[in-house]
């Protein structure tokens, strides 16, 4: 660890000012990703600005439109177990609790969760080519061990996936990310927050340096009646998703009036298909409908040597999770397949 300066900010403005004035400054939230990257010799902050003591609203507040606002510095654990989230946005609660471990969720914050970096093995080894870490150096994963990599939206420069569970639910719920920077405040629809790798895989998202996530808004519809989060992985807990699915359904009798399906573990950002969701509108809530929707979502999916299975897995997972959403009680702890 290189020498660095440490600053505890009392206000949002002060934190933003400090970070934006120093190219190599980082906001420090839970530190569960930032400190790892540092120890692995991937990032070398010159200045750490601790945002955990900013006295903004550090909870969850109800908004006038019937939605809610979640503080960026609230921990993942407190968010997941908050009564408003459990009752009105249980999909978000389940997704958060499917991630990491209890200890990490206690430390990790909502803002940090959005900014966490990929778990691509090659990204974490500073001695190997990686376009995300070292633009232009090449991608070791495309021809390497790519079991955990992307099947959708990847590029010839990078096939990494965004590893978050929480964000898959946020994408499905149409969250809005509120940020504040040197140039003022703005709100970014969730779908526009993260990016596909294209030829700039080094840029994960559309936040500029010095911009701070202050909160996350959720609209009133939380799909609390018919929802499910399914996470498939190489062990039952404490592993990142190979494929995960967040589903929210609104039903009118047996017909679907509105559907949300987002995938995790398959792309550089949580993956949603508006076409598939449009297709489901008005369709019966049956395996057949969900199967067709899955085909639409997975359109153009491309596998590599070690992750080809993800395409079939994703199709099966989408169908299963939509069926589970019809009976949310069928969900099991750890977000595994229903019994």
């Amino acid at each position, binding site marked *: *660890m*290189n020498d660095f300066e440490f600053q505890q900010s009392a206000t949002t403005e002060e934190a933003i000012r400090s970070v934006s004035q120093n190219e190599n400054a980082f906001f420090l939230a839970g530190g569960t990703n930032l400190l790892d990257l540092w*120890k692995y*010799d991937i990032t070398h902050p010159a200045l750490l600005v601790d945002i955990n003591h900013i006295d903004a609203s550090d909870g969850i507040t109800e908004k006038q439109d019937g939605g809610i606002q979640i503080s960026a510095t609230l921990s993942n654990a407190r968010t997941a177990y908050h009564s408003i989230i459990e009752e009105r946005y249980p999909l978000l609660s389940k997704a958060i609790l499917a991630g990491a471990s209890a200890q990490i969720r206690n430390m990790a914050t909502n803002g940090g969760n959005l900014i966490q970096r990929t*778990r691509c*093995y*090659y990204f*974490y*080894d*500073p*001695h*190997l080519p990686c376009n995300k870490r070292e633009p232009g150096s090449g991608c*070791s994963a495309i*021809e*390497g*061990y790519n079991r955990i990599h992307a099947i959708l939206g990847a590029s010839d420069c990078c096939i990494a996936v965004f590893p978050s569970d929480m964000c898959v639910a946020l994408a499905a719920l149409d969250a809005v990310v509120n940020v504040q920077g040197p140039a003022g405040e703005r709100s970014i629809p969730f779908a526009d927050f993260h990016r596909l790798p294209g030829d700039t895989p080094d840029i994960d998202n559309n936040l500029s340096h010095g911009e701070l996530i202050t909160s996350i808004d959720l609209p009133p519809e939380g799909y609390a009646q018919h929802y499910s989060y399914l996470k*498939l992985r*190489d*062990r*039952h*807990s*404490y*592993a990142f998703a*190979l494929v995960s699915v967040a589903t929210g359904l609104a039903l009118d009798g047996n017909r679907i009036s509105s559907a949300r399906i987002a995938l995790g573990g398959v792309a550089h950002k949580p993956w949603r298909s508006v076409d598939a969701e449009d297709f489901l509108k008005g369709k019966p809530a049956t395996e057949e409908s969900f199967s067709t929707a899955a*085909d*639409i979502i*997975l*359109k*153009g*999916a491309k596998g590599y040597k070690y992750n*080809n*299975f993800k*395409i*079939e*897995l994703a*199709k*099966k*997972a989408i*169908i*299963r999770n939509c069926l589970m959403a019809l009976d949310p009680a069928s969900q099991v*702890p*750890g977000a*595994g*397949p*229903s*019994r």
Partner: protein
Amino acid sequence: MENNRTVGTPLSRLEGKLKVTGAAKYAGEYNVENLLYGYVVNSTITTGKILTIDSSVALALEGVVEVITHENRPKLPWFDLFYADMDAPPGTVFKPLYNDEIVYNGQPIALVLANDFETARYASTLVKVSYKSEEFQTCLDDHIDKARDAKKGMATMLKPPPPSPTGDFEKDYARAPVKVDSTYQHGTEHHNPIELFATTTIFEGDGKLTIYDKTQGTINSQFYVANIFGLHYKDVRVLAPYVGGAFGSGLRPQYQLFLCVMAAMHLKRNVRVTLDRAQMFTFGHRPPNVQRLRFASEVNGRLTAISHQAISETSRFEDYTEVVSTWSHKLYPAPNTLFEYKLVPLDVYTPVDMRAPGGSTAMHAIECIMDELSYKLDIDPVELRLINYTDTDPSTGKPYTSKELRQCYLKAAEQFGWEKRNPKPGSMKRGNKLVGYGMATGIWDAFQFPSRIEMVLDKSGRVTVNNAVTDIGTGTLTVMTQIAADELGIPIDMVTFSYGDSRKPFSMFQGGSAMTASTGSAIIVAAKLLKKKLFKIAKSMKNSSLAGVSEEELSLKNGGIAGINGSWVSFADLVIHNKKPIRIKKMTMPNMLKLKKYSLGTHSAAFVEVEVDQQLKTITVSRAVSAVAAGKIINPKTARSQVLGSMVWGISKALYEETIMDAKLGKYMNPNLGEYHIPVHADIGELEVIFADEKDDMINELGSKGVGEIGLVAMPAAIANAIFHATGKRINKLPIHFDELFESEGYTPLMA
């Protein structure tokens, strides 16, 4: 007060509280004065040469004291023999920082020394190295054609090569009415004990070193250091009072010990070197392995021909071997046999024993092919084992000293509810899950090593038992204390077992599940001698009530010696009479003369239930029962913990654990516990352990065999067999990934 015997009772670990409260100190936790912290720089190429190594930027960092490389290291002996440790396989031992040659990825190439750990770690990233890379081969699958026989050496004694063929295998295999030919594989695994490898060297001056090392053998480390650095054995003291797991990785001195001692002697300072988790993947591992088995039987299930051909990885510089292809014939009789074991040397570090080395690899294959055969024969898998059951060891023709395997099968099957199994694959369901039942046999050695015990009775009536052995978390301290206390008829709090110190009398490194049998037997022998000595002293005490009583009339009682007439003298009085502590020393060896006529082994049977999701194929081991026959169980609690831990390891080996080698880079890609998957609580269902009643008067003084590994060997095959029963699919490569169970040829998405 009459002393209760503790052998056979479930005593909790004596050091348990120290461990869970953090009071137990490990090798990297001795905060001596003026300590320098070392951090290792590892090679980032796989093979080639170091062209330049520039430490100037690192040295310029405040707090950095020295960077030692092959260019500026102190003079070292060149002769390989000086580097050979007690567990070195045939070949040329790796010599850290010896020259500019790189022979594997992650090889230590420099040691940065600084006033604190973080500075050393940061400075290590500032050491600039340029290399000339050469071609390499690191992937076993790609080089199977290069397999050759293993070189012989000292290690061959404990790990003999497979026996010569018997009968005519090929002919009988061609003739036999029922046969199976299958190939099995598993990948590389790393031990990953939670305690990181570390050494703290205290530079005592006057040529003396005190070393806290993470090791399974204090004397092994002591010899290694003394030989290389030209020190007298008595001047090198190696201590390892607590070891936070090792599983074989501590059987050989690892490079942090070498580097730490070298730095301490070079700088004449106290030095600590601690490896980080990624560096735990830069030395020994369980080698990847490919096995082809061919088993043939008559239609009644009797095996007539068995062949087991195994190919394993080793390094370019040492021929590490395991006993793999020998096991099937220790279990199952067959007149025609053919066994082979070969190595492929690759550009990796030398493998090292990892819990149940060879045995867990072999039994996966053997017990899977037995399952396959049982389906061809349409005979129940347990029944097939019983048809081929024998009390003698078919590979030697000698009887086992004891073998209660049949009891293991029957007890575990009953406890498990095996009779509820419908043999048809895919026939049992529970909701969305396919349910599979699988079983397998386990067998493991019953080693005993030489061990020397010193016993000292002092005037407070306490007995101190001294031995250099370590306690790698198995419960050695507790069990040895129990054995000594019982044998001397005193409560356990009157016994101090003093261990983990190379100054204490000789012990081999702790491995092979041998310590209870080795150290424990030696304690019994020593205690008997002590008893004799005490009787003698008692009889010689003029004014004592025991004066002149014959030895047959004496017995140990309540911390003293009793005669049949109610007379009694306390241990303390004996010592006072003796004017100094009463002391005996005794070396105990296995009774080879007697044991020559027998085969030795522990046995087990594992029964496993898995649930496989019908559509998504995710696998859960919902429950497992293991029955173990290991002679007398000294402490049912610590023994059960050993077996439970092994069962978890078996689940890990079957479903999770693998070090991923990127063959293009020659490098392991998942060197951290986030991506090197070992089971978490959510992966473990209900586990049950049964100990068979097994009486063994032959094997050693204790009648006890080790339980450190036997619980692992049967599990992987039992799981793979259960998965077959659930799904009808045989996946012969470990670990089994759930997506390998997909039935279809894959799924073609719509065009974009």
